[in-house]
């Protein structure tokens, strides 16, 4: 419940910040009576108000949320996010094939795969998808330093 209040509190603060930011949207010439800022301001106001309500509502209004975040699991989650983010960053530089191979090994290990099957999966997956998309389906993928 406490963590939920923190989350909705953050949403409320962000909503308020964006509300103030939205006030600065000015059109050089007015084309319509509403203008570009009314709708965003309305939305941000409603978001902030709902988030404030969710943050301060009495305990009886909460429905139990089970997070189940153990230290071990949080570690794995962070590693997984990290692996996928690195995958995104090296997607062009290393090229699709190498990046996908590395990502598959990292993520596969996180999902309790053994090294050899995971590496084989990575090789097959990266080669096949590259061939399928770049060659057969005409979706261009970066080759990186193979290019």
């Amino acid at each position, binding site marked *: 419940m406490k963590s939920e209040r923190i989350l909705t509190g953050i949403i409320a603060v962000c909503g308020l910040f964006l509300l103030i930011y939205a006030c600065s949207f000015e059109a050089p010439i007015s084309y319509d009576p509403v203008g570009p800022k009314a709708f965003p301001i309305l939305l941000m106001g409603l978001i902030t108000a709902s988030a404030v309500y969710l943050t301060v509502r009495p305990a009886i209004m909460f429905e139990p949320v089970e997070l189940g975040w153990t230290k071990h699991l949080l570690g794995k989650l962070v590693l997984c996010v990290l692996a996928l983010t690195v995958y995104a960053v090296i997607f062009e530089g290393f090229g699709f094939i190498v990046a996908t191979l590395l990502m598959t090994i990292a*993520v596969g290990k996180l999902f309790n795969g053994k090294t050899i099957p995971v590496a084989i999966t990575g090789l097959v997956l990266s080669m096949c998808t590259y061939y399928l998309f770049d060659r057969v389906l005409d979706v261009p993928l970066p080759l990186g330093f193979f290019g």
Partner: protein
Amino acid sequence: MDILNFLMMGFEVALQPQNLLIAFIGAFIGTIVGLLPGLGPINGVAILLPFAYALGLPVDSALILLAAVYLGCEYGGRISAILLNVPGDAGAIMTTLDGYPLAQQGKAGIALSLSSVSSFIGSTIAFIGIVLFAPLLAKWAIAFGPAEYFALMVFAIVCLTGLVSTQPFKTLIMALMGLALSTVGMDAITGVYRFTFDSVGLSDGIAFTTLVIGLFSVSEILLMLERTTIGKVVLKQGKRSLFNVKEFFSALATIIRGSLIGFFSGILPGAGATVASAMAYTTERKMARDNSQFGKGDLRGLAAPESANNAAACGSFVPMLTLGVPGSGTTAVMMGALMMYNITPGPQLFSEQPTLVWALIASLMIGNIILLVLNLPLVGFFARMLSVPSYILIPIIATVSFVGVYAIHSNIFDLLLCMGLGVAGYVLRKFDFPLAPLILGFVLGQLMESNLRRALSISQGELSILWSSPISIGLWIMSALLLILPIVRKYLFIKKQKSI
């Protein structure tokens, strides 16, 4: 008989060899996506959407593909529900109640075959419903002006919060966030940049695919990390793999009732397959003369939710095609797909793009037949898909998702944005914030704002235009009632809790 002619025309398009093949592939992929626990129709449609677009498929083929995937998921969800007691998607939650006990009694074959026939009948009845109702609704909706549209979209969003959720404010906040996300980028009317923080990557707005894949695919990968290994398929071998005539007739009335409940709840924005199957199941249990076997392996308890969730999936096409307001999260994604092709769904769609609309409707029926044919003999093959280890499955999902996002603009920014959205989506889901309303809001956002601004331009800023016609007044009243409903419900709930 105009409608029959249009329908024949639709079948002509949908039966072209290319589209038939696409429907087949979609049905196949859909079934697999549906049966994998965690992956539901939104994920399936979201992952396939960028490809349909990148491949340069014509819009009717792209929609046929997505529709087949959607229906396929509703078929596939039941397989893992029956065999493993793990619903493959949210619409199959009720199927576990009687499906799994049947499988434990060695009647897995009967349960699987009866449920696929229930699904088939559900979709068929909903198909007939679409053919009968959709053109009428579209004709009626053509009288809608911008003010009525604005009221309708408010109604759609309120419907979501008031009807289905136990946590109305969470649903509301998500729908609002979706609306807000749609304002990111250059304002179409004035050219002002909104919420871009001077980033070039955001100046075009957030691409629909990036949002959907981030929210549903990346966050799903993180959620899957939490689940421990799912059980193995250990089943007693039964004598029969097909139900008999007596069993079919004992469930027939249930199937028809379930289909009707499903179709009508599918039409309501936001209610969708999950609510439909729960409603159908509880109705059947209440109506049954002898309900002692419900939850222990009653065929009716299996047939009701399965017919309802497929009927709801088909029914949710009605508001999307006729009003431009999607009836479920998945149809919201499909509406986004239409908009990627520069087609704005709405009542004009029936008169301006009759071939497209009727081909889509016809393809629902064709996809349905393909699915029945696929599902009866291939159920063993699909069941084996459940034993693909997650260390193979997850990298495939990640790769395909990233390729899909990369294909839009070929830049890294979109991939990182997608990751950010995915992490945010994961955290929100952990705290029971539903994501489907966000997609609905995102899809409706631009339409809602432009209709509001158009209406106020017509009236030169006079707000009263928003409630000047009987249609819009009616919609506002219904919205107000729906807003009050959850508050009253919550109040009664608290009062009851206090008295205990």
